[in-house]
Structures are given as structure tokens and as C-alpha cells.
């Protein structure tokens, strides 16, 4: 049992929700990407809390991997944004809605 566990978890939940709200609200692709990173941070906190509480190291390892994945995702994602900008001159994701009916 971690001390003030519920505060940590509430913090994690709040960070996640803030990140999600930003991800679905903003139109700039880069801002959306940053909000996704905020969501990942919130999830990381929850993992660490639970890892501490069960006194095992699984959660921490998971956080490591999450960070690695976030790095790779950043690289590829930004490369895609560059391509999008080159093609259409904008990175307003509302303009990219061709995969629809």
C-alpha cells in the first residue's frame, strides 16, 4: 500500500482525462500528439503506483517500454506530419477525412 495512493490515482485519472480532452478537441495535429503524450504520462503514474503497491517490478518495466514506444511513435508520427504538410500545406486534421463513406 502506497501512501496517499488514492491521490496518485486521482492525479493519474485527471491527467488522462485532460490529455483525452485535448486530443479530441484541438485541430492542430502536433497539439493532438502532445495531448496523447500527456495521456501516456497519466498511465505511467498509475503503473508505477500499482507496481509499488504490489512490490514487484513489472509496472516499472512496463513504463520503460511505454517510453520507448512513445519515442518511436514520436519519430514516425512527426515524419507523417511533415509529409501531410508537404502534400496539402496544412496539418489541420479535419482536412484529412478521405477514409470515409
Amino acid at each position, binding site marked *: 500500500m502506497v501512501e496517499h495512493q488514492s491521490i496518485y490515482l486521482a492525479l493519474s485519472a485527471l491527467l488522462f482525462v485532460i490529455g483525452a480532452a485535448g486530443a479530441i478537441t484541438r485541430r492542430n495535429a502536433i497539439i*493532438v500528439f502532445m495531448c496523447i503524450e500527456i495521456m501516456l504520462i497519466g498511465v505511467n503514474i498509475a503503473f508505477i503506483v500499482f507496481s509499488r503497491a504490489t512490490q514487484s517490478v513489472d509496472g516499472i518495466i512496463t513504463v520503460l517500454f511505454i517510453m520507448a514506444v512513445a519515442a518511436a511513435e514520436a519519430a514516425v508520427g512527426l515524419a507523417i506530419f511533415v509529409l501531410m504538410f508537404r502534400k496539402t500545406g496544412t496539418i489541420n486534421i479535419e482536412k484529412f477525412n478521405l477514409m470515409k463513406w
Partner: protein
Amino acid sequence: MVGKEIFMFDNVWLIPLLPAIGVFINGLLGRRIEQINKSIIHWVACGSIGLSFLVTCVIFFEMLGLPPEERLYEFTWFTWIAGGVLSTSFAYMIDPLSMIMCLFINGVGFLIHVYSIGYMIHDEGKYYRYFTYLNLFMFAMLNLVLANNFLLMFLGWEGVGLCSYLLIGFWFSEEANAVAGKKAFITNRVGDFAFIIGMLLLFTSLGEHGVWSFNFTDVFPSVHLISPGIITAVCLLLFVGCTAKSAQIPLYVWLPDAMAGPTPVSALIHAATMVTSGVYMIARANILYSLSPTAMWVVAVIGALTALFAATIGLAQNDIKKVLAYSTVSQLGYMFLGLGVGAFAAGMFHVVTHSFFKALLFLCSGSVIHALSGEQDMRYMGGLRNKTPITFYTMFIGTLAIAGIPGLSGFFSKDEILWQAFSSSHGHVALWAVGAIAAGMTAFYMFRLVFMTFFNECRASDDVKHHIHESPKSMTVPLMVLAFLSVVGGYLGVPHALGGSNRFHHFLDPVMGLGPGKLLQKAGAAAHHSPEGAHAAAAHHSLAVEYLLMAVSVGIALLGIYLAYLMYIKRRDLPEKLAERFKLMHQTLYNKWYIDELYELIIIRPVHALSGFLWKGIDVAVIDGFINGMSRALMWSSGVVRTIQSGFVQNYAISIIFGTIVLLVYYFLQALS
């Protein structure tokens, strides 16, 4: 049942098979063969019928070699329907009745096939098509008469109706011919509907007593088990089928229109064979009919009425084939009259003799039409006596036969029917009177036909007159053979009163359940008083009455001939004057008593209206509307649903969140409880 050791009996399947082979060869390869050599087609067709006739003769003579009580053999060819109680086979029955029918069907059919060669070879219709249909018809008809069970007989029944349609509408490029074919088929269908119901009613009511079979040898000995009401119903329903097939009131209307087909077709189908299948059916089911006096009475009355009614119409027609058509209807009425009063053998005798002279008359008229380059209206004929002698003499013989002049076949058969109508226990003097009057009319209009066609001056147009010629040998030889048979055929059935032994009648006794034969009488029967009763009753009326009636009928016939002579040879202005004085009567007779118009009004228009409603109101609006509506609803709903895939990633993220909420709430609540 003996016969295993008799050679040909087991090959009775050859009789229908040979025409079937003709159908396949001519039907499938006909077009090619026609390009190579047209005569192969008629060799195949006539050859198959000829061979079939030979087989029939062999079997017939073998059967004659057996004593009367053993003249019944059944041969099963193959199983047709293997369905529990409904199991039926293609099985044939060799007995006197079926053999007689086969003999004249094949014989007269062969002659008509030969005649068709001359008639159709220069026709613009397809040669191979004609012979294919003709052979198909023979196949169906032979199945009908040889069948040993109701279902196979019905197969033949329908088959001849189909071939009738195909052949009537042979020159289908003229719309009137196609319409006539349609009329024939539909009218026959109405009768067939009643026939099926009757047949199945018989099947099920026998089944209640444990006899689940369509075979004649199983059905007829057990019919006395069924209640009389049902027997009458079955008999009447089957008879409705006969009225359609054999052109009686009320379903005769197709036969006059069927003259739109080629003349040999009229001769074969509408004179000799198809229309007699109704008579055959009732003769075959004589045991069934004998059990129902009501049905017999109905048959006799309708037969008599039809005989008179059709004769009246024939008086006023001008188309040579129409006169013969109404004469056929009338003669068929005689046959049913004979059947209805219990004289089944007499009816069958008239079938045989009628097939000879009516086929002869039709073929002669075909010869006349051929000579006159297609003219069919008698008002434009005349004077052919010297130009086409063979046709004239043979037609004259045929006319004498149909008028019932003593010495020819028609006299013996018609007379026997009239005598039975008077004297049988089912008979009545009124029936005899109607028959006698009709006989007089028959003599009158047939001689009118002969006088208008062959006597006086030729009223045809000039270029037709130049082309008048006698028909080729292939057409005149059958005419001569049929004329010979029309004279000689009657001597098979010379009645006792005139010193003969009435061979024909006794030959058929076993089928009718009389005499030592009683072929179909396995279980003893209450069924047989009536024909024996007829004999007994006949014995009451003395020979004198019989001679008197014979004299009366001959007298009436001679009166008719004299009247025709008067009106068409001696005083040629009489017909017009009479038509003027009795204008209404003449118009009614000429317009066939307006029956066709009546049917149009009370049956055809309502059915059209109903089907129009069913089409537009139900089929289009409801059923199609339902299906189309379903597809429209589907398209609408999918149009609504597809907006979910908007292409905006953020909307997808929102739906993920929504799903997450639902799941989490669910699990949370579960954990709580």
C-alpha cells in the same frame, strides 16, 4: 395371367416407343436432316408409325389366339414414381379394348401420316416440326389407351392436349391460329382440372378402404366399396374432363376453332383419335359408371343434346372444315349417348366406324382445299365432280356412311346406339327421338356439303379454276383405303336382329364384365346388373320394334338427303329464301348460338378483370412494393448508419471513450454488487 410364353406381349412397350424414337430423331436432328434430304423425315415418321402398327397387329392376333377369359395381360415397363402409396409405373395393359383402340389409332394414324406427306411437303411451315409433333401426339395417345393405371392415362391425356395445341397453332405466324391453339389448350385445361380432382377423389376414397392404387385392375373390382355419392361425384368430374377432351357441351368451343390447323391434323386429332379418348375413358371405367345411374343419365342427356345442338349449327356453316367439325361434335354426342344408356360396346363401335369415315371426310376436304389452292368456303366451290374424281367418290362414300345409309359402317353403329337409347333400361324414348332428329340433320348437312362442293357449276375464281388438279398418289391412296374401311368396317358389328353375330360387341364383353370373361371382376360384384339388365330389357322389346326403329332412322336420313337435293340442286334459290324468312333463326345458327360471345362475357371478362386486379393490385403494388420497399428501407438505414464513418479521427476517439465508459461502468457495477 397368362402370356409369359407369348412372344410379343412383353414387347408391348415397342408400340409407344417407336413414335417416341421418331420424335427424337426428327425433333433433335430435323433441321439438319431437312437440309440434306426432306424425304428422310417422312420416312422416319411414317416408318415408326408403320412399325408400331405391325407390332400392334402381331399382339392383336396373338391375343385373339387366347380364350376370352384370358385376354388380359399387364406389362410393367419401368417404375415412374416411387413414392409409397403413390407408386406408379409405366405399365401397359393388353386387353380387347386397348387393342382395338391401338389398332385403329395406329392404322388410321399411319394413313394420315402418309397423306401428310403430300399435303405438307410444299408448305412454308417447317416439315420436320410437323412430323415431330405428329409423332409426339401418337406417343401420347398410345400411352393413353395402353395405360393400365389412371396416372399414365392422364399423362397421355395431357400429352394429346399439348400436341393438339402445338399442331393447331402450327402456322403460328397468323395470330388467329395461335389464338385457336391457345383456346384449345385452355379449354382442355379446365376439363383436365376436373379430371384430376375426380381421379384423386377416387384414389383417396378407395384408400380409405385400404386400396391405395391407381391401377385399373385394383380400382375397378373394389369400386363398389365406395359410397354412391362419391361414385357419382367421381363419375361427373371425370366426365367434365371428357366434355373438354371430346368436345361436348359445355366445353366443345375449341373444336371448331381448331380447324385453323392443317387438315391432316384435323383428321387425326379432331376426328379419329384425341376426341375419342373421352369415350375410351368412360368405356374403360364402365364398371365405375354402371354404379351411378345419375352419372349415366347426365352423360346420355349431354350426349344427346350435343348431338342435336352441333347438328343445328352445322346446318348453316359455309366453311367446309367447320361443317365437318360440328359434325364431329355431333357424332361424339352420339357416342356419349350410347355410353350413357349403358351400351358401352355400341359407343366404342361408333368410335371405330366414325374414325374411319370422319378421317376420310377430313382428308377428302383437305384434298378439295388442296385442289382449289386453299379455298375453304363452299360458296366458292362446285363442279369438282369431274375434275377430282377420286376425291369425289371417296367423299361420297364417307358421306353415305355418316348419314347412316344401310350397308355402310355408319349405319350399323349409329343404329345400334339409337336402338339402345330407346330400349335399354337407362334409355328413354326422348333420347331416341333427339338422336333420330339429329341423324336427319346430319344427313341433310353432309349432303349439302357434297352438293355444294362437287355438283353444279364451279363458282371459284378463274385463276383458281385453272389450277384444279387431283391430289398426288400419297394423298389419294389413303383416301381409298379409308373408303374401303368405311364400307367394310361395319360388318364387324352386325346386330343379331339382322342376322349377324355382333362380333364386336361380344369381343368387348370381357371388358364390360359380361359373359364368361369378366376380366376385371375379381371380387364378385353387385356392379353388374346394369349391362346385363340392358340385355334383359332389350329382350323384352321385340324384334319388330327394332326393325321399325331401323326403318324410321333410314327414312329420316333419306328425307334429309332429299331436302338437301331439293335445296341445292333442284331449286337453288330456296336456301336464300329460307334464310330471309327465318332470318333470326338463320343468324343464330350461323353465329353458333352466340355461345362464344356468351362465354366471353360471363367467364373470360371476369377472369381477365380478376387477373388484372391480381396483377396490378397485388403482384405489383403489394408484393413488388414490399420487396422494393424492403430494399429502399435498407438503403435508407444504411445511408443513416454510414455517416458514423466520418473520416474524422477525433470522432473515432470519442466513440472509443464512449465504449470505455460503458465497459467500465458495467464492470464497476458488477464489482459493487
